[in-house]
């Protein structure tokens, strides 16, 4: 039904979803995604932006290979080793922070030196603690560390900073910019926050309401992490115009 495979090094992420349906509770099929096509160059950072409930997380799960029940095609970059940060930290509560991170590593690498990563994310003094003892901000850091520890070819982030207070979110975003810049990992971020996407990404993909399609795409000039408020306002205005046009188009047809 779909054709999922991994490509060689420096290959882009290519995702085409012709259709993705869910069964509603009444037993009828609801189309969540239709004719969505997305291409992300190797080493670049893309952001999917869309209203809540438009199917962002569904698309991310398909890109992660966690949901193979769709019509379309997926090619993941590199050897296809995936790092993922979910909306919730999803740590094992019965394991310490360090165990949680090392458990994600392949069996022959469980002892690799992660001191730099822990340092960048400010986890050094929390490694022996259990997830239940951590603030949400720290648990998110541990989840980010887990995704980077495995040296992914491909990184997926599902609203990783939602419901954090803004000061913590700003710090974590700059840590994320540092890590993704250093590792050049191909990254796809899902968010509803335009300002966040503009700060982090090289390329923006704006999604429509259900069934989700890409309304328009936009490439941002480097460097990441240091973009002005004016740029955010400008893109926000462009998004408003494009959404209005899309609504008008769908009204005509």
């Amino acid at each position: 039904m779909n054709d999922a495979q991994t490509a060689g090094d420096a290959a882009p992420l290519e995702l085409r979803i012709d259709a993705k349906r869910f069964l509603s509770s009444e037993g009828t099929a609801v189309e969540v995604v239709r004719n969505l096509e997305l291409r992300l160059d190797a080493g670049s950072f893309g952001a999917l932006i869309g209203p809540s409930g438009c199917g962002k997380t569904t698309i991310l799960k398909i890109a992660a290979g966690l949901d193979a029940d769709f019509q379309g095609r997926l090619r993941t970059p590199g050897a296809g080793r995936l790092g993922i940060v979910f909306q919730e930290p999803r740590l094992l509560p019965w394991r310490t922070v360090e165990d949680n991170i090392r458990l994600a590593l392949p069996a022959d690498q469980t002892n690799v030196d992660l001191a730099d990563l822990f340092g960048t994310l400010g986890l050094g003094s929390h490694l022996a603690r259990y997830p239940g003892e951590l603030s949400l901000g720290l648990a998110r850091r541990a989840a980010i560390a887990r995704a980077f520890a495995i040296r992914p070819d491909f990184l997926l982030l599902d609203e990783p900073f939602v419901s954090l207070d803004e000061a913590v979110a700003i710090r974590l975003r700059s840590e994320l910019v540092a890590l993704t810049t250093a590792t050049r990992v191909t990254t796809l971020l899902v968010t509803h926050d335009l300002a966040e996407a503009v700060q982090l990404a090289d390329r923006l993909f704006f999604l429509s309401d259900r069934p989700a399609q890409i309304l328009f795409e936009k490439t941002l000039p480097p460097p990441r992490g240091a973009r002005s408020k004016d740029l955010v306002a400008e893109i926000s205005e462009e998004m408003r115009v494009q959404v209005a046009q899309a609504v008008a188009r769908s009204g005509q047809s």
Partner: protein
Amino acid sequence: MLPRIFSLAALIAVWAVVAALVQSRLLPDPLTVGRATLAEIRSGELPFQMACTLGRVIGSFAIAMLLGTIAGYAMGRSKATDRFADSWLIVLINMPALVVIIFAYIWIGLNETAAILAVAINKLPNVVVVVREGARALDPEIDEMAKAFQFTAFKRLRHVVIPQLAPYLAASSRSGLSIVWKIVLVVELIGRPNGVGFVLGSAFSLFDMARILSYAICFILLMLVIESFLVQPLERRANRWRRRPA
């Protein structure tokens, strides 16, 4: 610990007073029972019979826990398996222990295999029911995380599944030990030439109340020791991560 010692002492005191009041061979006082127990221990009779019983308890408990956990997990994870096996489970739960024991002895013979299997089958459905609840409650989000990070089957079992099942396994092993040892005594009474159940049967025919009481008390003590020095520490270890303040 202190309140527990006090309450046990009170129980023995009540027993001594009642025994002194009725003055009957059918209710020996604590001292007589104590002397009988000492004599049984010195002769080596009591340790031997308890070891026979304990061996059967461990054997059937292990079989019931192992098979029950596998079946319970399968039923908790797969709706089709659950629908299919649920009626078998209902039959097993409601089958009187005695019927299982008699069938086992008749079909397999009056031997150790029949005895241990009969007890294991009696305990099995209880383990299945509890572990099935545990398997149904497994966190799908953590499952998805394990899949995304390509955890091997062994890693998933050890670090994802068993820690979540641990409270259910602990609950069913605690209730399990006490059920199993009671049924083992019945099995021994009916069809074994040794073990605490066999001794109680012969003491019953001789109206030897002191002997019955000393075996019963010794076995209760043994189970208390297993509970406090084996089951509880294991449970504490499994729940270490829970007791931390959030």
